[in-house]
């Protein structure tokens, strides 16, 4: 047992981080929010980095890595709020031709969980294919042929959504097992994205608290702020441990219950993302309430993620079943 990153994993992590830092400095967020935040150039960059085909076998043009590696990558995407249907397209690699290479942009609707209605599809305008998860099937629908009403004002300015009023049945690509697997892997990816949000919210707030002075001193010297930041750090580190463990548990036989590890990671990381983003706004004070500063983008994305691949409440209920079994 060695819970540290391997050299390859560290390289993967720092490579994707450097790329995301370069592509999406915080100054770009407000700019991206003005138009369609789906950026084809960014998307093909992600594809080239292997984000979508990361877990597809090398024989199929993928990178052949595991969910633990995907969790590292998705945490980095979360840190920089990379826009686009990254989780769905990643999940679709191997199921939908062109997904692994990013040429086919895949989105989805999870109708197997508690939050089915209304059918709001993220990044609809950019999609080629829509995957629909139901309790007993996975279907693919041609997104370009689908009618949907774009929502004028999405909650997250970087996550446009469209309302699909009438969903035709699509081509069946799998049954209950596949749906369950995709929901589980999706929850792990959401946990990883949430971890990234929790991390960056803490880092932003810490940096701001060192710089911002009131009453003649940096506000990070006041215990009320210092202790909020300490709690943010603790949440982030616990989330990191849980997310990494979920990935490794999923990839490696005999380590533990896969569904439990992922549900736990999703609950803890979701909580960390939401609470850290809220605390970040509070620590930024008035500036945290402005559109131009990054904190609110993190809260809004955390909110979006909280509705994807099962709510925290659903994962908690599932964990309770395991506990009660």
């Amino acid at each position, binding site marked *: 047992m060695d819970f540290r990153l391997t050299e390859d994993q560290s390289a993967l992590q720092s490579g994707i981080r450097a790329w995301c830092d370069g592509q999406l400095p915080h100054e770009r967020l407000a700019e991206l929010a003005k138009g369609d935040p789906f950026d084809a150039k960014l998307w093909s960059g992600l594809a080239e980095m292997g984000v979508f085909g990361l877990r597809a076998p090398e024989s199929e043009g993928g990178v052949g890595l595991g969910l633990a590696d995907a969790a590292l990558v998705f945490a980095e995407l979360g840190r920089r709020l990379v826009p686009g249907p990254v989780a769905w397209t990643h999940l679709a690699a191997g199921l939908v031709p062109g997904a692994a290479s990013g040429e086919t942009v895949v989105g989805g609707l999870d109708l197997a969980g*508690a*939050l*089915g*209605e*209304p*059918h*709001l599809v*993220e990044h609809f305008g950019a999609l080629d294919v829509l995957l629909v998860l139901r309790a007993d099937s996975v279907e693919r629908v041609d997104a370009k042929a689908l009618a949907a009403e774009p*929502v*004028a*004002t*999405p*909650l*997250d300015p970087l*996550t446009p*959504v469209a*309302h699909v009023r009438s969903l035709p049945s699509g081509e069946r690509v799998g049954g209950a097992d596949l749906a369950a697997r995709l929901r589980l892997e999706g929850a792990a990816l959401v946990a990883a994205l949430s971890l990234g949000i929790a991390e960056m919210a803490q880092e932003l707030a810490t940096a701001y608290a060192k710089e911002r*002075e*009131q*009453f*003649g001193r940096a*506000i990070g010297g*006041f215990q*009320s*702020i210092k202790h909020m930041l300490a709690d943010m750090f603790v949440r982030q580190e616990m989330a990191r441990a849980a997310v990494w463990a979920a990935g490794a548990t999923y990839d490696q036989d005999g380590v533990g219950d896969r569904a439990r590890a992922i549900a736990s990671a999703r609950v803890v990381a979701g909580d960390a993302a939401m609470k850290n983003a*809220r605390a970040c*706004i*509070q620590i930024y*004070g*008035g500036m*945290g*309430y*402005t*559109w*131009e500063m990054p*904190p*609110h983008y993190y*809260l809004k994305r955390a*909110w*979006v993620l909280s*509705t994807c691949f099962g709510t925290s*409440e659903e994962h908690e209920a599932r964990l309770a079943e395991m506990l009660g079994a």
Partner: protein
Amino acid sequence: MDLRYSAADERFRAELRAWLADEVPKHGPPPPAHDWPARVAYDTGWQRKLFDAGYAGINWPKAYGGRELSATEQLVYYEETARAAAPYVGVNFVGLLHGGPTIVAEGSDEQKAKHLPRILRGEEVWCQGFSEPGAGSDLASLKTRAVRVGDEYVVTGHKIWCSFAHVGEFCELLVRTDPDAPKHRGISWLICPMHLPGIEIRPLPTLAGEGEFSEVFFNDVRVPVSARVGAENDGWRITNVTLRFERGTAFASEMINLQRVLGEIAALAKRVTRHDATAWDDAGLRRECGHLLAELDALWAMVKRSVSEAAQSGMPGLEGSAIKLYYTELFQRVSELGVRVLGRAGLARDDVAGLPSRQLIHRHLNSLSLTIAAGSSQIQRNIVGERILGLPKDR
């Protein structure tokens, strides 16, 4: 301890309720958030109607057009306007709940005569000029300078978080008149006309996306000395008068509104599905709603206590900080619950599938400022700890 309203109070309630029942529907729905001319017309128009009917300045002196009613009648007013979902004070906020009460308490007779009746009639929109980029929680460290030249102050500085600056005719402006005095001792409180040369207004979009706030730059703006409220360099004390009004009952209507909002969230929970049930079928969610209702009831009882106490002293007490702390965090939790109940519909800020996303999300996003503005929760806890409990000051 008598929570019964008197017969006179109840007559006032009946009369007000009847009037609101007629007038609120007639005034129509509020205009879109971005349409400022329409919002000004809507808000000031409503204020004018209140004035004409004798409901403006419920607790302001009759001499200046107020109704000078008792504390209990004010409560009745809050309850009934909230109950009727009457238009919010909107652009009249600073004039009616901030600057106006300060002038009532501290202004000269000329200032009272000049401003109070116009504020009550909806003829004078006010804006705020308190915070600065370097003076937020530490408001008293503000740097905007006012140099006296003859009978004018020449004002230079940079204000931020100015509510309604782009539609305001007058600004409650804090300036430093003595740069050499200790920071709390060199501040003055000015009524600054916003049409003066040298004022530049730059809108400041918030995370809710809209434009109530601005940054305002003052470049050698010449404000008459007669527009100063109170003595020169006594502005910090006066500011605290202003803030006490804000922390006390300025949000009273909002507090009652919140009870209605919680009811709406419960109603929503009965409509939205979770698997094969509704969200309301969940015992945990119901208890959460019940808990919030208990807190809202406690809050409103606390406001009544505070109003009863203030009726004697004439000034909101320090418990305003306790009310603000509790109210703002409670508001955030109530409104956050609304977003949670929306489920996936909460990804849209426009109503989708007949669910009230626009309003619920807007309310929650706006609520995020409540624990920051008008003295952050951290500042309020310091006030409660130091000024009420007598704990040692921060070093």
